[in-house]
């Protein structure tokens, strides 16, 4: 059998998919009051229009009281059906197959929204929700199975082509399958897969033979004594005759989430062992997932025979046209693996977005007509200016992008030079490629001033000139800024104190660069936790391991009062204890300062750090939005 290519059609049960690229289920927080919205329809339709063969919509909950997060689709509520119909019509209009994922979070949930005790195979608290569940009675299990069937009936009424039963990262079914969470002594303890067999039987009855039934199976839970790829293969062999395809997963959402949605630096195909093992155990198509951010990675994993279909979530959030590009051999706007506006935002109960795709999460908000062609002078070739120039050019405006330095990319260009941060640079590399494709006039080593504005006479100036380091009030002579280290190549040796006052990646990046160059590095932060912003983006564990390997010390609850020569005065703000410490260098990683307005000689729109120094998502979004509003 020859290995499939991304563009090869494939039969999945009663249907034929047009290619091998799937948009798997993931949380969007687009639901309102338990119901899907117009945003869901537009969001999925954009990926279908972009070529995906099969869209699997986010979890529809099969339990009336299953409410782990606020913006959950309540699959058992008949009121969801009109919203489901809107989704399926929108996806079908672009020729893609659309399935609904159905799940129940069991003990991986809280009673916060439902008001009643959560339920699970055994009364053991989930590590994240920390709430003791009520053990499911035999009657509860029957209700649980019936809830899956009821959700399937609603999906059928809503026009879906089929259903995927989640038995993976956040699922009561996985809790039955895993020895870590199933301590029962009844039939469901003796046969951990029994509940899955019953659910698949009930759902198949609800779907009938003309629709697709799939299951998403858990591979490695990433927990001592937990499920492995071999377990996924064994379960797949057991239920393979009941389903039309098997999807795969690694990690537990409430315990080992970084395994599910790994950050930049984790290689594509990191989870390939699971689909490989499952594919050897079943005769139905198998979906593999695992940080595939470019079309070539998709082709490579298919060629390697690890799976029959490839699930690409973040790659298609970043570029809805990912699948079409994969088939045509084109370029995509790449997912960075920054996890900032997708995973972190959703985890914080905000709608899903994307740093590099400012349309993600607001596909249902139509763009206004571009209006008449404008002459636009964009001042600043960082991400805000580049995004403004790309969007303005796409909308037909006459754009001149002017950068004072000798390269595009702004702070991203040097932030990406830090160890482990290289993929951040894709954001500006891809924008630069789009600028070239669009033929946007770009001038380097040219500063925008009143004279240039007078000479060019634009309709509007987009001021995206960014920010500069701000010297902290405590800093004496000789204190370096993170920019001196990452951009300027400063590599102080000996004992180096990195002062983290801004959060984010600046201080970890500086600390790692200096430690790799041989310095003995200590970081200090006023916060209770070092590098705390790396938690929501799931980068924390990897950073902790790198920091430990490099011997970087991370001190918390501490502020710098002053530096003088080689002496730093520190205050532990919770105890009031002061300390003087001798160091060889101090690196400040603090909030930056916006540059002064570049001109008042024409109508000006200010964007990005020039307004207030913030993160990359604000720069790209504001650049894009300014171009849309021209």
């Amino acid at each position, binding site marked *: 059998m020859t290995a499939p290519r991304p563009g090869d059609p494939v039969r999945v049960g009663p249907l034929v998919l047009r290619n091998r690229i799937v948009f798997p289920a993931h949380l969007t927080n687009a639901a309102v009051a338990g119901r899907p919205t117009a945003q869901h329809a537009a969001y999925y339709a954009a990926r279908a229009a972009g070529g995906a063969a099969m869209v699997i919509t986010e979890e529809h909950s099969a339990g009336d009281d299953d409410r782990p997060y606020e913006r959950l689709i309540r699959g058992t509520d008949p009121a969801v059906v009109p919203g489901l119909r809107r989704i399926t019509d929108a996806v079908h209009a672009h020729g893609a197959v659309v399935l609904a994922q159905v799940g129940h979070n069991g003990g991986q949930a809280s*009673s916060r929204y439902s008001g009643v005790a959560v339920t699970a195979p055994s*009364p053991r608290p989930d590590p994240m929700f*920390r709430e*003791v569940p*009520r053990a499911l009675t035999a009657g509860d299990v029957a209700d649980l199975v019936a809830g899956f069937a009821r959700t399937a009936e609603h999906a059928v009424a809503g026009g879906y082509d089929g259903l995927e039963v989640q038995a993976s990262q956040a699922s009561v079914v996985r809790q039955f399958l895993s020895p870590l969470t199933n301590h029962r002594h009844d039939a469901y303890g003796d046969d951990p897969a029994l509940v899955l067999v019953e659910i698949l039987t009930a759902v198949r009855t609800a779907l009938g033979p003309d629709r697709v039934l799939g299951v998403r199976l858990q591979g490695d839970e990433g927990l001592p004594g937990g499920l492995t790829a071999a377990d996924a293969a064994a379960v797949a062999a057991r239920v393979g005759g009941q389903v039309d395809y098997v999807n795969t997963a690694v990690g537990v959402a409430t315990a080992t989430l970084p395994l599910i949605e790994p950050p930049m630096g984790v290689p594509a195909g990191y989870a390939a062992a699971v689909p490989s093992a499952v594919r050897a155990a079943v005769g139905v198509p198998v979906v593999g997932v695992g940080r595939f951010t470019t079309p070539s990675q998709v082709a490579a994993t298919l060629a390697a025979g690890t799976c029959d279909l490839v699930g690409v979530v973040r790659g298609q959030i970043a570029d809805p046209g990912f699948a079409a590009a994969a088939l045509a051999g084109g370029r995509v706007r790449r997912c960075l693996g920054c996890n900032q506006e997708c995973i972190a935002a959703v985890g914080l*109960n905000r709608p899903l977005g994307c740093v590099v795709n400012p349309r993600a999460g607001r596909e249902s908000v139509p763009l206004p007509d571009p209006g008449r062609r404008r002459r636009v002078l964009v001042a600043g070739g960082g991400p805000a200016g580049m995004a403004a120039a790309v969007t303005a050019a796409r909308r037909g405006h006459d754009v001149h992008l002017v950068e004072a330095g000798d390269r595009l990319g702004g702070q991203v260009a040097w932030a990406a030079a830090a160890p482990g941060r290289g993929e951040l640079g894709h954001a500006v590399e891809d924008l630069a490629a789009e600028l070239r494709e669009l033929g946007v006039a770009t001038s380097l080593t040219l500063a925008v001033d009143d004279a240039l504005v007078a000479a060019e006479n634009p309709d509007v100036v987009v001021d995206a000139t960014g920010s500069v380091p701000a010297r902290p009030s405590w800093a004496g002579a000789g204190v370096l800024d993170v920019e001196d280290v990452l951009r300027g190549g400063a590599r102080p040796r000996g004992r180096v104190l990195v002062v983290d006052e801004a959060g984010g990646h600046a201080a970890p990046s500086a600390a790692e660069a200096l430690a790799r160059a041989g310095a003995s590095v200590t970081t200090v932060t006023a916060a209770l*936790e070092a590098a705390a912003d790396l938690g929501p983006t799931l980068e924390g564990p990897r950073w902790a391991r790198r920091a*430990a390997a490099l011997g970087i010390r991370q001190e918390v609850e501490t502020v710098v009062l002053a530096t003088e020569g080689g002496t730093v005065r520190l205050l532990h703000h919770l105890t009031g204890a002061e300390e003087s410490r001798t160091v060889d260098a101090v690196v400040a990683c603090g909030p930056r300062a916006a540059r002064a307005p570049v001109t008042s000689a024409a109508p000006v729109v200010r964007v990005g750090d020039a307004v*207030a120094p913030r993160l990359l998502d*604000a720069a790209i979004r504001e650049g894009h939005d300014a171009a849309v509003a021209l």
Partner: protein
Amino acid sequence: MGTGGGSGAGGVRSLTGPVVLGARTAPSRVLFGPHVTNLAEPGRPRELAAAHVGHYARRAAGGAGIVVTEVASVHDSDRPYDRSPRAADCGPGWSAIAAACRPHGTLVLAGLGHAGSQGSSAHHRRPLWAPSPVPDPVSREVPAAMDEAAVAAVVDGFAAAAALARAAGADGVEIGAGQHALLRQFLSGLTNHRSDRWGADRGLLLRDTVAAVRAAVGDDAVVGLRLAVDELAPWAGLTPDDVAVPAGLDYVVGVRGSGLTVAATRPDAHTPPGYGRPLAAALRRVAPPGTAVVLAGGVVDVPDAAAALDQADLVEMTRALLADPDLVAHARAGRAPRPCVLTNQRCRVRDVRNPRISCTVAPTSGVPTVPPDDGRAVRVVGGGPTGLEGALTLARAGYRVTLLERDDDLGGLLRAVARLPGRGRFARLVEWWRAELVRHDVTVRLGVTADPDPDVPTLWATGGVDRDPPVPGVVALPAAAVLAGAAVPDGPVVVWDPIGDATGVGVAELLAAGRDVALVTGDPVVGHELGGDLVPAQARLLAAGVRRVVRHDLTGAADGALTLRQVDTGEVTTLPAAALVDTSPRAPGPVPDGARADGGLLVVGPRVLAGDVVAPRTVHEAVLDGRRAAARVASTSSWARA
């Protein structure tokens, strides 16, 4: 404004009697202050919903003198949390609240504000506004420094919102210059580094705003001000010594705290009530004649509130009115209200998950009513919070209730919980229940073990059971047993805390008197789930000498030491331990054969299991289950007679 306050009966009469504010009269001196509720409907997140109307009207019906509605943003540069009201969308809501409160005479004031740099860009995706580009210490987001046009827009926004509130029928407005406020950021040297007129005179924006609001609402409306009096940062922040109260106000509420000390405004019971007194005293010294002073600061008991009238004209009792909306009515009748326990667990809801406001000891939603009965007999087994609340609910409905408790006292686990630092008020709650049961003629039998009775409707709330120790090889004690007085062996103690709530921190603090204590958690900080008490808890632990060990799992024990594994790196270390104290929640009690689930409870024949016996959770769920189970028992009882 002498009020004749004081701690005696005269003080209570004064507290519960009318007070004149400008052109209006409030029916009592008790103020229900502005607070985040998350009661908005999901599809209309910035409007005041029917649930808001019910929330405020209930307190008005119970005798509150003034209700200040949830702070509404006066400008679109501000959306500090997902469901923060937007003033321009609040007209209908203010009208409905005013109409619902009017029959009770309660004054309804619209809370107005702008959170400035303490807001969030997460929802409106705009730059934050602030006097100077000084990041908030929590979010660390750099705000945009406001230009003249932005400053003018904020003043205009306050005036327009105030005019809208008046037109909607509100009695007036309260201007926010307290802990989460742009106006405070302009007042404070911590956050205002401007060199223009707004920096040279840091009080200018507040005075301009008060004047614009007064002009917008006229002289017959109430204009109040919530003012930060002490930022607890004397090196640059506001202090009671330099507070100034603008002219044109009917009242001023003094609060404390800033972005550096977010927990200081409504701290939990670790901070004894009374911290509002110096704030009120400072305001009394400088407030213009005719401006009433409101004391705010953890006052939750009627005698304390009456005594506070020596120093203030009114008293804010927001949390006390969450625990018992009828507090003023009870005080008038000489009855004790259900006590607020000052734990902030369910009323502090500025949380990204958008939890709806409730009360730890008085659940407000999902509670069925129990229809009145003419005295049929029911049994309650178990005198913990579930049984106590269930018995009270049934007795109030007219049932003849017998409560059986196997221990020699009421309270269940709450007696142990009340020994934790900052949790002492749970003992007061148990005493309140005890008195209420007496008042409602409940028969209480202590030291009695009950068997299931197939003929008597029974609320079965016998609690949870101990779990197996987390690791073998060490003396392991459940935290509840330690709190109940179990002997802890001499030597170093490790408190293992997989939960991160007040128990682990509190047990560690208690045990640290006279021995080495380490508090170990897999989380990046100890007390991970504490919310407002998170930072103060760290300081207390350090002061007590507790060693905090974070990001470690407990993997084993041998030879007087525990084995720990660093969660990220896998590095294994040991920690000496003569004993391990485990804060894991307890396990459910045994599930009887044939039990079936019913609305989160378990039912077997006429027996309804509820509370920790079903699944050990917090006091809130225990109380909620008690009420639910009472309703379920009542329906069992009706069925039995049908």
